[in-house]
């Protein structure tokens, strides 16, 4: 391996057989290239899906009441279920130890919203202070609704960042401005940011205000909860499912809903959903690995194919070398040395090229469910090593056979 003379001999051969070397190298480099890109996108999709789930707290659980679809205890199907404050209070009390954050929510309907002379067409929702953490909203200006606002039935509002850019573009900050909701002035006290624009098109006011000022009574449209984070993913999923089932059971009982009537009381857990997506991304990842490994195998077959042709093409040369005193192992060594060298160089070239491409293009990809495709360098590096080893083995058989061929046979006139 460290025989300088051998290296010189090999460089000579490579220099004088550029096309052959180039083709061998190309098949190796493209194999690695495709594998790295595929793995990169597998990771990208995983990242993208993780990102999608960051919109809400990953442990959030949402309750959406609906319409009963089954007859139960003498009650007709088709009943609309309406949650009330009591349900929310009891639920939070019952599952106190399981819940980290909880917030009821009410959609304020049939109101007109104005800012100065401008009519705003954004939805108004009454929520409590914990909602910020459940929605994973970040505050860019001012503050979120707090407990004090709820107790005092404060006439305060939080707007999404998109509303700020759409409506409040003439003032320096919307904080301190007043918006008019059905004739009642609300002071803007904060601006929140979300991952997606459509979630920034809401005006939040304290739920107490929403109920009292806009005929909400004690009604609640939906409830949301966030469970405390757990380190282990499976435990988190189990916890979420456990909580979800308990909560549903309670709500079905108080509203006299058949236990198997899913449409009347929908309880949705982000964790459970995430598990499904994680399963999906794992499958995608597996698939990409499979395709990648097939690509590598194709690369190895390509290399061994080329090696066989190379050896065939060089049969005469090998015969001449043997006649001049080359030992069998020096022939095998020469062919393998060249194969390893070419495979290694082109393998790493493919690696560097594909990783550079991922590095450069990756962060600029803006497609849903694909985010920052990247690949673990160690994985890519070991793949190249595997390819080199496989290429060597693939080259060994024809090289060994060539070295064993009798000189007179290889020198026989073409």
């Amino acid at each position, binding site marked *: 391996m460290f025989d300088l*003379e051998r290296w*010189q*001999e090999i460089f*000579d*051969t490579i220099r*004088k*057989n550029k096309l052959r070397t180039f083709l061998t190298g190309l098949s190796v480099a493209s194999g690695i290239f495709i594998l790295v890109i595929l793995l990169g996108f597998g990771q990208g999709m995983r990242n993208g899906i993780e990102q999608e789930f960051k919109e809400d707290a990953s442990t959030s659980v949402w309750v959406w009441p609906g319409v009963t679809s089954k007859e139960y205890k003498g009650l007709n199907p088709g009943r609309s279920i309406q949650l009330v404050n009591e349900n929310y209070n009891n639920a939070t009390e019952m599952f106190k130890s399981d819940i980290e954050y909880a917030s009821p929510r009410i959609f304020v309907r049939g109101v007109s919203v104005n800012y100065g002379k401008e009519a705003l067409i954004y939805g108004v929702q009454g929520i409590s202070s914990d909602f910020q953490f459940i929605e994973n909203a970040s505050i860019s200006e001012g503050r979120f609704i707090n407990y004090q606002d709820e107790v005092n039935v404060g006439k305060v509002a939080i707007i999404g960042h998109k509303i700020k850019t759409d409506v409040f573009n003439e003032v320096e900050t919307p904080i301190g401005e007043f918006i008019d909701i059905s004739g009642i002035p609300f002071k803007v006290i904060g601006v929140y940011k979300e991952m997606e624009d459509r979630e920034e098109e809401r005006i939040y006011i304290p739920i107490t205000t929403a109920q009292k000022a806009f005929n909400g009574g004690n009604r609640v449209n939906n409830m949301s909860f966030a469970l405390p984070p757990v380190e282990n993913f499976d435990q988190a999923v189990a916890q979420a499912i456990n909580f979800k089932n308990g909560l549903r059971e309670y709500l079905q009982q108080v509203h006299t809903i058949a236990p198997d009537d899913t449409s009347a009381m929908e309880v949705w857990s982000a964790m459970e959903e995430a598990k499904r997506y994680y399963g999906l991304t794992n499958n995608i990842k597996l698939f990409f690995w499979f395709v990648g490994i097939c690509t590598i195998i194709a690369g190895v077959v390509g290399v061994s194919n080329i090696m066989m042709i190379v050896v065939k093409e060089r049969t*005469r*040369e090998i*015969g*001449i*070398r*043997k*006649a*001049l*005193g*080359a*030992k*069998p*192992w*020096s022939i095998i060594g020469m062919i393998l040395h060249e194969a390893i060298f070419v495979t290694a160089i082109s393998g790493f070239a493919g690696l560097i090229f594909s990783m550079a491409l991922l590095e450069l293009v990756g962060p600029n990809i803006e497609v849903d469910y694909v985010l920052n495709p990247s690949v673990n360098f160690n994985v890519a590096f070991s793949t190249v090593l595997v390819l080199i080893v496989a290429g060597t083995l693939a080259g060994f058989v024809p090289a060994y056979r060539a*070295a*064993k061929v*009798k*000189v*007179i046979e290889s*020198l026989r*006139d073409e």
Partner: protein
Amino acid sequence: MIEIKDLHKSYKMGNNSLHVLKGINFKVEEGELVAIMGSSGSGKSTLLNILGMLDELDEGSYTLDGVPIKNLSETKAAQYRNKFLGFIFQSFNLINYKSAAENVALPLYYQKVPRKERQEKAMQYLEKVGLKPWAEHLPNELSGGQKQRVAIARAMAAEPKVLLADEPTGALDSKTSYEVMDLIQKINDEGNTILVVTHEEDIAHMCKRIVHLKDGVIVEDKKVEQVRAEQYV
């Protein structure tokens, strides 16, 4: 230098066995220039292959420069070939992607001679065959006669005990053939032992001794008055 006793060689062709050499006894002294003649199928190439350790004998003994050649491993055979023998082939057998100088230097590579020394020696032998100006040319840029001269330089470069030439003029026109023979004679004049396989009478008469092979046995072995090739050049 070369001593062969009762040499037999046969080839298996399916169920039949083809007895090619049927008991050859043959001796070559140092400094001889021997022509091995015979029509095709007479066994002359087989004999040369055995002498060149490219093929193994079935029966009998072969001694080269006092070393018995029998049951050699591939590696040992390669070593002996490199040390004892220089080959000149009918079809030249130069490596086509290597320049003339690199071709000449190749046997020295397998003798583990350092690169610089290899190059110097290669140039020295190319000069000897009159091809120094063509040192950097590839074989396909050379004429047939030039190619054969490169091949001769290559065979000489390893400084072997015996030069084996298999129809060295077979692919050349008569003028070039005489040039090549002239070169071979001059190399012989310096004391090198050379065996030439040929089926051309005039080429054979440019050697000092003619061994006639027919159907696997030596039918005639005579010393001849050497015809110098120089006069035809």
